[in-house]
């Protein structure tokens, strides 16, 4: 039974996948959606060709980036659920800079990156300040800031930033200097993110701040005993998660979109929460679940075209998977423990 214990996380992840698949199949059966076809449309078709697989990585990138940031906050028990707003704020700052100063040459791209991070941090800082100075729950304040950011974004792209002579509510294309270079069909962000993912694994293990945040989240009394300053830790967690969400916003506008529009986030900040909880805050887990969630999103787009299913079916599946991950993470270890005790008991009974 020892091997079982070591891989509890993996096992509960697998169990959650199976449970999630069963539940979605059940849901489809009850809603009279043909199951086999849906699975084909959802999980196979989107990644059937190279283009699809590249799309998957491009979709997963901002999810993963947001999730990395959020995992820092959740680790410390800081409930930042407003990553979507921080993402939009980052996109607004970076996009605004690029549109206002298109001729900065090679400096434009790094300036945009900094602006995106600063924008995300600014939005997160509001929620952090309200939590620390006013005691307001960051859960609700960060969430409402999402809608404020959305309205600011919509107001900008439909008014002052709207492309002159353009058709829809969107800005003109970003200057080339602000766009991420494309290598091998994937924008640079995806490649850099793959490297960051590996680095993150080191950071998780080595960064004192991450360790202290974990202590704060898992045993606040122990953090107090050890003399950690919880206010500073909360600031750090919020700012870091905001910065990464802001960068995710930049990935969107400087990658697949190339401009700003009101739907540029399309709920990535919320989907990232699914990624974080389902991936159990671990780097590898989140990388895998961000691919899963990205697949669900692409699948939903595909299903809308191929089967005329509303796109929110993807949302339904995300919800089902999140709940089954939560259920398995809590109960699989307990069940394993019970199995182990039963085996030991039987063995000792035989021995006696």
């Amino acid at each position, binding site marked *: 039974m020892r091997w079982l214990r070591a891989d509890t996380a993996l096992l509960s992840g697998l169990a959650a996948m199976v449970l999630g698949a069963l539940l979605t199949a059940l849901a489809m059966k009850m809603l009279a959606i043909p199951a086999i076809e849906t699975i084909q449309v959802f999980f196979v078709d989107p990644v059937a060709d190279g283009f699809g697989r590249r799309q998957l990585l491009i979709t997963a990138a901002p999810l993963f980036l947001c999730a990395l940031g959020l995992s820092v906050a959740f680790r410390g028990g800081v409930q930042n659920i407003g990553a979507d707003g921080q993402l939009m704020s980052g996109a607004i700052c970076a996009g605004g800079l690029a549109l206002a100063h298109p001729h900065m040459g090679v400096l434009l791209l790094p300036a945009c990156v900094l602006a995106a991070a600063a924008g995300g941090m600014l939005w997160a800082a509001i929620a952090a300040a309200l939590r620390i100075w006013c005691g307001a729950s960051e859960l609700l304040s960060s969430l409402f800031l999402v809608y404020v950011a959305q309205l600011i974004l919509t107001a900008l792209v439909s008014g002052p930033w709207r492309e002159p002579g353009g058709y829809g509510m969107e800005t003109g294309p970003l200057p080339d200097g602000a766009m991420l270079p494309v290598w091998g069909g994937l924008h640079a962000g995806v490649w850099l993110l793959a490297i960051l993912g590996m680095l993150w694994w080191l950071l998780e*293990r*080595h*960064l*004192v*701040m991450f*360790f202290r945040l*974990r*202590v704060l989240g*898992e*045993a606040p*009394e*122990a953090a*107090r*005993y*050890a*003399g*950690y300053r919880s206010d500073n830790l909360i600031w750090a967690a919020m700012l870091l998660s905001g910065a990464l969400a802001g960068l995710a916003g930049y990935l969107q506008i400087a990658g697949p979109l190339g401009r700003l529009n009101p739907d540029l986030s399309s709920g990535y900040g919320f989907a990232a929460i699914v990624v974080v909880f389902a991936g159990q805050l671990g780097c590898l887990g989140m990388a895998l679940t961000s691919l899963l969630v990205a697949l669900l999103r692409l699948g939903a787009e595909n299903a809308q075209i191929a089967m005329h299913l509303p796109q929110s079916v993807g949302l339904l599946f995300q919800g089902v998977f999140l709940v089954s991950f939560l259920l398995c993470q809590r109960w699989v270890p307990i069940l394993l423990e019970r199995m182990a005790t039963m085996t030991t008991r039987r063995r000792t009974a035989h021995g006696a």
Partner: protein
Amino acid sequence: MAEAAVPLLSIRGLRKIYGQTVANDHIDLTIAAGEVHALLGENGAGKSTLVKILAGLTRPDGGTLHWRGEPVHLDSPKTARRLGIAVVLQHFALCPGLTVQENLRLAGLDRPDLQRFKTQAARYGLPVPLDSCVMHLSASERQRLELLRCLTQEAQLLVLDEPTAMLGPAESRTFMTLMRQLAAEGRAVVLITHKLQEVLEVADVATVLRRGRVVGRLTDLDAANARDLATMMVGDLPQLQPAPRTPPRQLPALTMHRLSTAAHRDHGVALQELSLTVRRGEILGIAGVAGNGQEELLAVLSGLQRTSPASLLLEDEPCGHLGVAARRTLGLAYVPSDRLGVGTVPSMTLAENVLLTASGMSQLGWVRHGRLAVRTREILAHFHLHQPPQTRLADLSGGMAQRFLVGREISAQPKVLLAAHPTWGVDVRCAQDIIAALLELRAKGCAVVVVSEDLDELFALADRLAVLYRGQLSPAWPMAEVDEHRLAQAMAGLAPTAGIAEHHALAAG
């Protein structure tokens, strides 16, 4: 007492076993209507187990109970209540966010009952504000509430667990008058307490428990019995250990100078002008019955609570205003009483738990895992623990976790180590290891402050002993001058310190 032909409650051969410890070992007890029966004993003597059995919360493993001569099984709180047994626990079963009246209605009192509650309150002179939130009530008001509830529900036997632990002297007096009044009405009162003075004043009979057994019973209590009771409670004092002690060096390591705090919240204890010096190479024990300011003292010494700079000196450095981290840097280490969740994080590995407080394990915000593993192995090896550093702390037994915690704090090579009952709840072997480690630390010149309620532990460790009583500290006596009489009296609040003088003045007036 005259009508006690058939006792109200008689207990014969009661046994209760938890795992390997025998909490109650063949306890015999007879309680007659109209008497106040005191039940005395140190922590862990088996009093609370007995109370839980009487409340119907725990079932005994053996023995019989007779209620008015009839055999009974107290299988639920409801059964106990129906018979007329009411238990008032130390932690009241009240919803703090609701008002008094709401709590009473939740407990099943309807409108006529409420009317009777008010009548009872008036009759016994126990005013309780019916419309106040319970969390705004003082401890004594909460207690009155619980007591009146029991009386409204026609309780015949009242079991009161440490009823005066949180009361001031004046309130205690009123309370004792009330107990006599209840007994005069023909009810029986079982009073569980540490305080000898109270027992002498109010009880008809006293039974002393030690390690789960009845070790003594006294009737016709008067002042002359005080010493007997104290001796029974404390038991034979442990032998002073023969090992030669290095004389303490004269350099002060930790100095408290008129250290005071305000009582925070309604149940806290205010520390009152504590002054004491602990020298290098010395172990100072601080004894006392729980709830006399130990928590507050530990908080203020460790830096969890700050005070004025000059009221606390680490060597020569004023540090009363510093927080935990700064005091650690100055050379203070702390073994708290909650080893899981405060002293350590159970869900983390041993190495991570070393990282929790150890200094020098990181550089520029980057953890040095190599060093950390070495340090962790050192700590484990010191106590002959063979777990790898990657073991989760939660997988360690209680004794192992405690040795690990003590080892981690020692490994910081502190100038002063603060320890809250370091051997509490661990087996003998493990306790010996911890004691040896602390003595070794003393030999290296570290000053150790041990705050504990366990006299065995203090006698095994301390060079000098002081007693904390209601936020005041007795002088620190060298162990040679400590005798059981002096100690028992100081712990029960009979020593002639300022607070007790006041108590006596009240008793006289």
